């Protein structure tokens, strides 16, 4: 675990009506730390992330970011505090070119108040080059790019705007092995720039290669929180799906 703490969630509970989605979860992320947050569908990982991003207020529990207690009530507030969340379908506008995507919502203006298109082109291109992305021009539309390149742009953008914590949802889903490796490189680059990341996935294989620490949720509870070196893949996989023989008799159901 990292020396300095960036994000700390204490005893987070979240109810949706009668459903107890999070049952007292403690979760933290250190500076320059990459945490893999894994769990099956419905385990509570996206609920936890939505609490962190200010989409849901927690029913009970405290949230600290950069040492201060926070009560984010909208994604904009967490964004301003320095938390960038990249959801799969919400990262980029396909029909827009790279530079316009890069600065969407934070467009720079020149001295007559119009879009500073040159600055947008220059800075987005340098952001992509820092990331090692090979793209011809910042005028290329996103729908011409591969999935890995798109993740790279979203990560480069988070780097450029100096976010402290970036949350990536299924970062290598639907990517080829070669492209996944690229995305892992981008994530390592984040770390070298002293930024932290949370990688969400339902599969341990997806986040294991780059995570410093693995956290597993099941049925709204944290059941594993270990440094990567101490984690056995089999152990995590069993933890994610639970012991089938114990909980539900699968053979019985099949019959």
């Amino acid at each position, binding site marked *: 675990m990292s020396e300095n703490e960036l994000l700390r969630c204490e005893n987070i509970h979240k109810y949706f009506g009668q459903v107890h989605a999070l049952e007292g979860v403690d979760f933290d992320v250190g500076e320059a730390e990459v945490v893999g947050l894994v769990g099956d569908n419905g385990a509570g990982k996206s609920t936890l992330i939505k609490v962190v991003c200010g989409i849901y207020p927690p029913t009970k529990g405290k949230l600290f970011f950069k040492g201060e207690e926070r009560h984010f009530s909208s994604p904009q507030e967490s964004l301003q505090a320095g938390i960038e969340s990249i959801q799969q379908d919400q990262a980029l506008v396909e029909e827009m070119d790279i530079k*316009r995507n890069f600065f*969407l*919502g934070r467009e720079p203006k020149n001295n007559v108040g119009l*879009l500073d298109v040159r600055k947008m082109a220059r800075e987005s291109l340098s952001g992509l080059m820092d990331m090692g992305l090979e793209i011809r021009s910042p005028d290329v539309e996103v729908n011409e790019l591969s999935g890995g390149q798109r993740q790279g742009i979203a990560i480069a953008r988070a780097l450029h705007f100096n976010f402290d914590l970036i949350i990536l949802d299924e970062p290598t889903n639907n990517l080829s092995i070669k492209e996944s490796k690229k995305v892992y490189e981008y994530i390592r680059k984040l770390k070298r720039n002293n930024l932290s990341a949370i990688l969400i996935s339902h599969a341990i294989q997806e986040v294991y290669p780059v995570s410093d620490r693995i956290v597993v949720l099941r049925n709204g509870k944290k059941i594993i929180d270990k440094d990567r070196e101490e984690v056995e893949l089999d152990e995590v996989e069993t933890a994610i799906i639970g012991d089938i023989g114990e909980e539900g008799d699968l053979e019985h159901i099949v019959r």
Partner: protein
Amino acid sequence: MRKIKDFGWSVGRTTLTWKALSSFISLIVVLAFFYWQVGDILFNKSIVRGSILDLGVNWAIVALPVAMLMISGEFDLSVGSVFALGASGIFKLFQIGLHPLLAFVIILAACALIGFVHASITIKLGIPSFITTLAGMWFWRSVVNAMWSYTPSAPRSAIEYFNNVFGVRMAGGWFYSKFLFLIAIFVILWIVLERTPFGNSIFAAGGNYDAALARGSKPDRTKLVLFILTSTLAGFAGVVSATSAGATMTNTAMGLELYMIAAAVIGGAALTGGVGSLEGAFIGTFLLRYINTGVIQMGIQSKWFQGIIGVVLLLAAVLNRNFRSRVIKRFT
């Protein structure tokens, strides 16, 4: 030498990636065809001023905001009725004796309010704008019909007041002064769409609403502004039309909404939003005008106008779908 080459490359690239390139090519083809069939359509002063530019300006003032609204992912089917409301409404206010300028301000404010109502219902209640503005199309047309039980008329002096602004023959009779207003509107809207953060939010709202929201680009506010802009300019076009022609009818501009959508689509806009350009909508509008005029000049019965527009619309849609991405892949 290197610089010249770079410059040439950059000009070539800008041309090839120009969003309205395919509609521009369509326009050239249509013009060439009519020039070959009836040369007059390009060089006859009274045809250009009357059939092409007079009606074309009224249409284009509406087509430009409609295209922006479509880029943001919304429709406005009420523009024909709001156009008629602007035309008939200002005659009504002239008739009851309001000062022409006051009448003008009231009409534009009323049309802005109509846009606000359409936007609020669409955004707050989550009703698709196709439905909201379809309801608006019928409702506002009824208001127009209720306003006049006979052909709208107005005192000559009030009409002249605006005719002296919009209907002055210029450049030796090639166009009316309202054409200059259109050019000014085009330039302003182009800058807004292509060179402001607000313009960026228009493309984002239609391209990926959730992404726009997540990036803090306020897509709902963007759509609200565009609905208001569209209704206001539709009413303005109605005023321009009625005062420069000196007459209007309660059933004027019926079906205009679909020509506007056709103009935007011919100009490269997608029904799903996120794509399109003002140059394209501009070219699309005048393409429709040229086809209409050309068909009449060729002596084909004018009932074929709509049939030919249908064919051109389809060809343009096919061209837009395949042309641009291929050109870009190949040459950039």
